[in-house]
């Protein structure tokens, strides 16, 4: 174990996987020097052949990942920010998500698309989106969202080893340093969530950047005598339905905390799963704490108003419990 911040943990995962398997290649804008730190040093270690600086051309970037994967490589396509997923969305939605199905499983498509998502840095509307709802709906790509450096490392390694296109989306802030196992085979399985706090009164399901806030909310609620089952979802496609349903069986109440805009958010879909499959365990309304349906504003005052924070979670749960 060693304490690491988010970006170094991601970097380490990339280093380890590129060393392990020389079919893993990576490309992106300024991938060599690395704007955000994920890819620092990779070009020095693995050469300009396997780690490529691309022009700015998200359209061809997303598509060529599919072609290179079909032809035997395991490309990592680094898209910088979540909003640029939209720029390269054609090949994601029409090719990556469908090619295997359309050809009846003729190909494996081990592609990782990587981007930083979400707000909190006054980067404004075009650098702060949470694009996963659009990706989730495609059905043909996996989506994972780590919550800290440990899950970041473990999920990235699994994503790289997965034979399907995986979107690997990390929160901009990245949170505080966490203990990360040194084991270079430390993997977090895609499709499994983690229960990071146990309690009987309410279930919180949190995603990515919201997990740290949910943990802080959990502590505040504990202080008030409210027991929280806190699930760090980690994978959005596939979703770990068993774990969330089991938790709901225990608590009967659930709040989903998601930094996505509300309409058709991950939170909405999880809510739908639960009110379908676990209806009889529900003691109260399923609540969503999300960004309302606006773009992310620049001003920090406005931005923190629209992005869910600890108080929003605590308030939501207190109201929920008062209802009964």
């Amino acid at each position, binding site marked *: 174990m060693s304490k690491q911040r988010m970006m170094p943990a991601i970097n380490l995962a990339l280093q380890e996987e590129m060393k392990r398997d020389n079919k893993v290649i990576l490309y992106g804008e300024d991938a060599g020097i690395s704007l955000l730190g994920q890819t620092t040093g990779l070009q020095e270690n693995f050469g300009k052949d396997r780690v490529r600086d691309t022009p700015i051309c998200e359209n061809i970037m997303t*598509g060529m990942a599919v072609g290179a994967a079909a032809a035997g490589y395991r490309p990592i396509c680094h898209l910088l920010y979540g909003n640029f997923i939209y720029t390269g969305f054609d090949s994601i939605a029409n090719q990556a998500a469908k090619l295997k199905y359309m050809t009846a499983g003729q190909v494996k498509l081990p592609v990782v698309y990587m981007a930083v998502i979400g707000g909190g840095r006054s980067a404004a509307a075009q650098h702060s989106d949470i694009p996963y709802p659009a990706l989730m709906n495609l059905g043909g790509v996996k989506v994972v969202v780590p919550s800290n450096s440990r899950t970041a490392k473990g999920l990235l390694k699994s994503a790289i080893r997965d034979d399907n296109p995986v979107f690997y989306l990390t929160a901009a802030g990245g949170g505080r340093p966490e203990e990360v196992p040194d084991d270079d085979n430390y993997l977090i399985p895609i499709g499994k969530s983690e229960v990071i706090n146990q309690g009987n009164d309410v279930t919180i399901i949190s995603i990515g950047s919201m997990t740290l806030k949910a943990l802080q909310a959990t502590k505040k609620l504990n202080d008030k005598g409210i027991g929280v089952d806190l699930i760090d979802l980690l994978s959005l496609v596939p979703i770990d339905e068993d774990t969330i349903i089991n938790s709901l069986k225990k608590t009967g109440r659930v709040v989903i905390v998601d930094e996505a805009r509300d309409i058709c958010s991950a939170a909405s879909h999880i809510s739908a799963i639960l009110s379908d499959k676990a209806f009889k365990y529900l003691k109260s309304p399923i609540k969503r704490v999300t960004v309302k349906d606006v773009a992310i504003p620049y001003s920090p005052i406005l931005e923190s108003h629209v992005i869910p924070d600890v108080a929003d979670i605590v308030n939501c749960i207190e109201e929920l419990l008062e209802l009964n």
Partner: protein
Amino acid sequence: MMSIKNYVNNLSDEDLKRIYKKMLMIRKCEEHLGEATKNGAFPGAVHLYIGQEAIAVPLCDQLNDSDWISSTHRGHGHFIAKGGDVKKMMAEIYGKSTGICGGKGGSMHVADFKKGIIGANGVVAGGMGLAVGAALASKMDGNGAVSIIFFGDGAANQGVLMEAMNICSLWNLPMIFMCENNQYSEFTHTSEVTSGKIIDRAEPFGIPKYEVDGNNAVDVWQAAYQAVQRGRNDEGPSFIEAHTYRQRGHVEFEYTFLSRTYRDQNEVELWKTNEKDPILRLESYFIEHNKYSGDDIEKIQKEVQDEVDDAVKFAIESPEPDISSAMVHMIER
């Protein structure tokens, strides 16, 4: 246009006959599909390659299974030219379980990765990125394999072409941009939606360009030869613009739903003549030069027709897909 005979040199009679036969195979498959679709013999719509056979075949004739092709909604010809199985293609278009994609892809998605066929594509220019990715893989493998993107004059207006040319030039990828300019993008003449000459778009990227008569198999073969050799020798990408003509509608049946015509029937007929049609031109050449007699040609026509008939029979007699197959082949969960 130049006549074929001026060109034949490094291309043997053997080669040309093989090419002719493949072209005929495409023609006869497409003719069948054009007929059969009228009776609703298979489920989807088809975009036929008739008139353009002299593009895919001479190029693919120089490729092997480790080379890649990525194509268009008008993709049957490319599939067959690259060695795709005619039976499995036919069964696919008929939506059957024995189809190359188990009936899940249909006409616009015939693909066979084992044969280097990344497949047809329903999104105009959608195959561009796939081909570039395959070219990158080949480059990294260092195996001399090349990657071809077939695209139409209409597709040449999608910006992704510029992105592809830039990256292929920068990275010296073994890519061939094969633009099939059949003069129409759906129902609109190229001149109305395309500024300048398509082939000139390769120039700013320093990509060598070859403009050819796409209805002349030999002409295409020669240009393709240059381009393929460049790729194999790690000399980078090439751009070919082949001028041709779509003898059929954009999609079969189009006059059942279009409110008016969009091209002159005389124009269409012109391209079906001995002087223009790529298959008739080859036949004339063979006969003029005593390579084949009229009987030989008739015999070949029949052989090919028999093979097509077999494929159709196979397609018709094949079972429908099992409904359970609908739920597999997305991501594994």
